[in-house]
């Protein structure tokens, strides 16, 4: 056992960890920290910051192409990086547990829940007899808040809800009573209510069993109520470590401040500030501070040498030459004036819309969308919000009901709509990685609708494409590239550009920021806001009430296919009438 301080045990001791890609390009370097028993550490960073690399390196694992080249990982006194083969396999699981991001793919669909748990126990030498094994499984299932009767143990993963699946993942990690548990964004695929429950369960388990936890997340708001300490990563380095209260009250590193300013908050509407520029890829770091080129406090000295992690008077450890030391000024809740000026004529009217696949997902939904406003459709998974959006876009199958667009009846199938009408309603998809044809250059993707709808080709098309790229803040050189060389945010901008080229009046956005980092999300939301000012009407589908607060004028809350509440955003979110809306609000992560 390691050093004992103040009656607590150090469970995890990481020193000078370094992970490299081929060619000595470091993904992660100089990472040192320690964790006490029962302590929960939030590991925060955007995609590409190396947080997942660090999380898996704690299990002495590196993804293909990467290698752990230096440093120490000590768990309860065992040096994990020096273990090999059988000894390493035993240490994984019994010393350190891992919970993956997506339980739907992490659980073997062919094994029953009981077998999954029994197998996990069987491969580790715990010297438990059958009865003790069964008791351990029952206790663990009880701890994570799952039923533990024989019927439940016989179920297959697909017979469970997403929340239950993630609880099974927790049970699989906790059943071996490890000393440390690593969780890689385990709630991103879950609804806010489920997420809040899972986080509460996790915190209770860690505290009661004295298990240390590393919780990886890209969203500071999510972990605010869970963790004891926060570690912020940027470009493969730790840039700031502080206790939870200290970090949220007076974030020291400019990057941490930037992240906090970019997160939309359900508690109040405020201007979101995106961090300009991109995080550098491994091997392309600038000299000196990696965050330097994006930093507003940049000084010439920042480009000289990489700042080291140093303790400040306020109890932070921060890698910055000029850290902030003032408490964070909550940006005053300057309400953004509603962009929409209410007009009597509705641009889109939906009357008695029903959608049914093998079961009915929308029941008699009616709504009006006024020209120039942004209406948010909110609901949890299974609420039918995407079905509604798709029906408006003409992609829905098995839809019945009346649609009226600008006073004229609108057919439910895109194929039956006239071309003159079709280009006015555009749809942007959730996943920017699948919304662009990977074999077409950006120019091919963008020029196709121009030719299709307006017969514009050649030089005129090129000019229009360049203009629209400028409008979505992309350089004109992007036109020659294929989607795989673009980041998620850039792809989503291209998707928006494609929609804009069709000269739409109504833009349907289906969770378009849920796959993106918070700072990218902030810039995309700002872009949409700008487009709305130019006269576009938005139908914005989301599950995130913070985003609703940031962008929408009106909100419509859906619960299992029925509208439970609608109204102006501020009145619905400040004085919710429906019990369901109150539950959603209560469980939404917030920074306030």
């Amino acid at each position: 056992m390691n050093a004992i301080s103040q009656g607590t045990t150090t469970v995890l001791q990481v020193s000078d960890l370094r992970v490299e890609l081929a060619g000595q390009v470091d993904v992660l370097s100089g990472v040192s920290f320690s964790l006490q028993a029962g302590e929960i550490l939030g590991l925060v960073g955007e995609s590409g910051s190396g947080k997942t690399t660090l999380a898996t390196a704690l299990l002495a694992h590196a993804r293909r192409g990467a290698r752990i080249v230096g440093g120490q990982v000590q768990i309860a006194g065992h040096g994990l990086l020096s273990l090999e083969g059988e000894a390493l396999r035993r240490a994984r699981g019994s010393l350190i547990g891992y919970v993956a991001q997506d339980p739907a793919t992490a659980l073997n669909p062919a094994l029953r829940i009981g077998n999954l748990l029994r197998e996990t126990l069987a491969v580790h030498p715990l010297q438990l007899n059958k009865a003790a094994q069964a008791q351990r499984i029952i206790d663990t299932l009880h701890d994570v808040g799952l039923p533990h009767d024989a019927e439940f143990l016989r179920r297959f993963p697909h017979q469970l809800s997403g929340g239950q699946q993630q609880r099974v993942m927790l049970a699989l990690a906790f059943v071996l009573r490890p000393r440390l548990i690593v969780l890689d964004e385990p709630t991103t695929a879950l609804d806010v209510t489920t997420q809040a429950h899972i986080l509460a369960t996790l915190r209770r388990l860690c505290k009661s069993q004295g298990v240390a936890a590393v919780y990886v997340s890209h969203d500071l708001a999510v972990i605010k109520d869970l963790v004891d300490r926060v570690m912020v990563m940027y470009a493969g380095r730790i840039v700031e470590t502080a206790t939870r209260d200290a970090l949220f009250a007076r974030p020291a590193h400019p990057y941490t401040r930037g992240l906090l300013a970019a997160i939309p908050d359900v508690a109040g509407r405020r201007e979101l500030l995106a961090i300009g520029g991109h995080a550098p890829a491994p091997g392309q770091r600038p000299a000196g501070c990696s965050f330097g080129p994006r930093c507003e406090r940049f000084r010439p000295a920042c480009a000289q040498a990489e700042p080291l992690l140093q303790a400040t008077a306020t109890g932070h450890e921060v890698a910055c030459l000029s850290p902030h030391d003032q408490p964070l000024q909550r940006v005053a809740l300057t309400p953004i004036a509603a962009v929409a000026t209410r007009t009597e004529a509705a641009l889109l009217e939906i009357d008695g819309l029903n959608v049914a696949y093998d079961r009915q997902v929308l029941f008699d939904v009616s709504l009006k969308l006024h020209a120039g406003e942004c209406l948010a459709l909110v609901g949890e998974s299974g609420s039918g919000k995407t079905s509604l959006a798709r029906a408006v876009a003409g992609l829905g199958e098995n839809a019945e009901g009346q649609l009226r667009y600008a006073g004229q009846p609108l057919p439910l199938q895109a194929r039956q709509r006239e071309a003159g009408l079709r280009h006015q309603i555009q749809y942007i998809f959730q996943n920017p990685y699948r919304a662009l044809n990977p074999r077409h250059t950006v120019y091919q993707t963008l020029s196709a609708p121009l030719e299709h709808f307006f017969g514009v080709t050649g030089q005129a098309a090129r000019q229009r494409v360049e203009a629209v790229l400028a409008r979505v803040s992309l350089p004109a050189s992007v036109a020659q590239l294929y989607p795989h060389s673009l980041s998620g945010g850039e792809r989503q901008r291209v998707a928006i550009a494609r929609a804009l080229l069709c000269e739409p009046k109504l833009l349907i956005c289906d969770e378009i920021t849920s796959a993106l980092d918070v700072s990218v999300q902030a810039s995309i939301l700002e872009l949409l806001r700008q487009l709305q000012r130019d006269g576009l009407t938005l139908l914005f589908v989301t599950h995130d009430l913070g985003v609703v607060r940031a962008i929408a004028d009106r909100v419509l809350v859906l619960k299992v296919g029925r509208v439970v509440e609608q109204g102006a955003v501020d009145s619905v979110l400040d004085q919710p009438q429906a019990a369901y809306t109150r539950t959603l609000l209560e469980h939404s992560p917030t920074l306030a």
Partner: protein
Amino acid sequence: MSKIDYWRWLAEPQTRQGALITLLVVALALFGPLLAPHGSTDMVGPVYGAPVGGGLLGYDFLGHDVLSRLLSGGLSVLWMSVAAASIALAVGSSLGLLAGLSRRRLDQLITWLADVSLAFPDLILVLLIVSMLGRAPWLIVLTVAIAFIPGVIRLARASAVSVAGQEFVEAAQMMGYSRRRILFKEILPNILTPLLVHFGNMLTWGVGMLSGLSFLGYGVAPPTADWGLMINENQAGLLVQPWAVLAPAVLIGVFAYGTNILAEGIGRSSARMGEKQP
């Protein structure tokens, strides 16, 4: 398809090797007739004469020079297998794409037809058609292509279904692009790689099948020089003059090997390209 893709393919050593071997055999078949010391039907030596002096590979069952027949006999089998594989690729991928995108009654019909013809052994089907309708080269090419089409349909359909579910196809449908445009401009480029790999495999199988047909006596008519036919003609003298059988057999094997690892290399490098994309 972009130029970049082709360069990435060539970066794979296996692809380069395969391309080199394939090109060598093709060059041999193309320019062989010009290099041949004798005409392919000239009887210049003793029956089953051993390799001596001028005839490097000896003489066959009628006293033709084996080397000359070998150099002249590649062209027919190669062009026929390339033609058969190309026809199968064009027809099969069009039908497969159509089935993959429609996913309704048309899909069921096409898949059912493909399944029924898959249940027929290829060679029996070809033999049946050729023995009924004759052995004109274009007919043989057509029947071999017909035997290949169901496999291409299955492959193209399966690949198209996974691509058709992606949002960029839905976006194209929403824009109201024509079905032909969606099939050939949006989906086809994304399934081209598995199809090209399959094309390589079909070349291999085609050479095998055509040689088999010749061997069975249903392929190219004697006295034309043809690798498959040579194996058939000279099997009686296998022990006396093995070169007359071995030489064409080795060339068929080398061509098959070349196209096979070429296809494999292309498959590998595009699998690697796929990895880069999340």
